[in-house]
């Protein structure tokens, strides 16, 4: 990072980028992304090639790492990740979207207290939930099940839905709803047929964020699963434990785990910050 060397980057004046600035941006980008690109190129190398230095600039990429992952137990972990993330997203949306709508139209007492409780749920370190969930699951036999993961993920996805959806509902003009109500429609019908279609993009963005948070989880899955419900992030780490260090497989596994995340999150770029800050700041 070159600090304040080029004077034009200091001021708030928005102007089209100078060539010098474009070069600086390009260099910074390559530097910052190089660790990420290193993992990616490693996933296409054989283990011999990975250990070879200086690294060859041009090599024949191989898919053998990916192929061996797919034939092994990793595929099942990938499916577990998909299922637990999808189901918890669906559950959180079904429960949270109507609640967010009600809250957005409700100025009653306790709204701030409820909001803060939701914020704390989002901010609490995962271990705070892991201990009780672990003990409870051990007791009722939900350890190492996808159902167990879905429930845990819902504990942070439901607050996220309630937080993120409220501003979307606030943008729906209340005159629309009132007109329908005057015509004799019930609130339920107004909500389902008028309001919901208008916030569809918000629901899509929220759904993607929920999916990503659940997909990205490592800690809960590490403790609450063993073999049956093991998720992809935990499975990748397990490659580090035995049979030596299979770097090619680790890199390919890591690349597979991040693939859906990269695709989806670039689609919801605008909402990334409001999701992360859980609504305490207006994005």
């Amino acid at each position, binding site marked *: *990072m070159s*600090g304040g060397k080029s*004077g034009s*980057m*200091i*001021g*708030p*004046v*928005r*102007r*089209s980028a100078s060539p010098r*600035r474009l070069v600086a*941006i*390009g260099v*910074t980008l390559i530097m910052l*992304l190089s*660790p*990420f690109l*290193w*993992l990616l190129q490693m996933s296409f190398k054989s283990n011999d090639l990975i*250990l070879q230095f200086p690294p060859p600039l041009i090599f024949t990429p191989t898919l053998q790492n990916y192929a061996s992952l797919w034939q092994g137990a990793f595929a099942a972990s990938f499916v577990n990740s998909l299922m637990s993330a999808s189901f918890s997203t669906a559950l959180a949306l079904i429960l949270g979207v109507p609640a967010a*709508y*009600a809250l957005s*139209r*409700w100025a009653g007492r306790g709204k701030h207290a409820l909001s803060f409780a939701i914020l*704390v749920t989002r*901010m609490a*370190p*995962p*271990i*705070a939930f*892991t*201990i*009780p969930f672990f*003990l409870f699951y051990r007791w009722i036999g939900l350890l190492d099940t996808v159902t167990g993961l879905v*429930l*845990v993920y819902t*504990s942070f996805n*439901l607050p996220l839905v309630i937080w993120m959806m409220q501003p979307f509902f606030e943008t729906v003009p209340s005159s629309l709803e009132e007109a329908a109500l005057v015509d004799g429609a019930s*609130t339920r019908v107004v*909500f389902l047929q008028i309001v919901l279609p208008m916030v569809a993009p918000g629901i899509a963005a929220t759904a993607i964020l929920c999916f*990503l948070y659940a997909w*990205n989880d*490592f*800690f809960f899955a590490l403790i609450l699963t063993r073999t049956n419900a093991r998720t992809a992030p935990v499975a*990748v*780490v397990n490659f*580090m434990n035995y049979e030596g260090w299979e770097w090619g497989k*680790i*890199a390919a596994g890591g690349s597979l*785990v991040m693939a859906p995340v*990269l695709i989806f999150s*670039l689609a919801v770029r605008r909402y*990334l*910050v409001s999701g*992360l*800050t859980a609504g*305490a*700041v*207006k994005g």
Partner: protein
Amino acid sequence: MSGEGLVDAERRRFNRIALAPSLIVLFVIAGLPAIYLVVTSLTPFQLVNPGSSTDFSSPLRNYRLLPGDPRFVNSLWVQAKLSFWGVLLQVLLGMLLALLLHTQSRIVEFARTLFLIPMVLPPIVVAIIWKLIYTPDISPLYYAASLLNVTMPSLTSSVDFALTAIIIADTWEWMPFTFLMILAALQTIPEEFSEAALVDGANRLQIFFYITLPFITPILVISGMFRLIDSVKAFPLVFLLTGGGPGSVTEVTNYYAYLLAFDFNEIGYSSSVTIVMLLLVVAVSLGVVWMGRRREAMA
């Protein structure tokens, strides 16, 4: 009038039906676990000794033990160092990056998205990426150092560098977050301010210190506090890169609580450590909410 009253009643009924399931589920999957955590923290519960889960004979025993536990005190100190340097670097570098990319251009707008990649990667993948960088046999970093005739120590197993290695990885991961927030703030500064200052003969540095910086200071603080809260969660990096070591040089409180509960089976004691951590997080969260409100009131 009576028609409106009817609509209101119907609306209230709808609200109750819409809210109730969420509130019940939240209570069951977030409220009850929180209560259970507090209860467990009042017992000397060990997994190997099931009877101990309901032993409330000395409820504050765990909390009395905490101040005298050198590993716990050390973990708070490690967390403080990790949080301080992480937050400082992320806010500072995020600001520089935001200033660099605060410009109008199609290409730059596309580049902004690419800069977000480290933040959206699954945390465990970030940990794997840095594991590759920090493992001498396969690391381009160590190869580059050897070309320069520099012998680098193994960073993650060195008492002096292990925590720094984690701070670097954490900063790489989260700088895009502060960058994004600060960039959004930069874009709200009215151009007339700096144009007027330019006319008055101010140089770029003066514009930065007298116009830009005061404008974005609140967002610097807020983004820093969000990172402060989340820095408590830095688990995958510690887990994969150092395992808390060497010794307990990188053992943050979160990791210590994890070891206590799931390695040493000291569920009760671990719960009390977690409660203390939770209280710290809640305190900072309250601060963030308060600042957010004040900012909204000002705007």
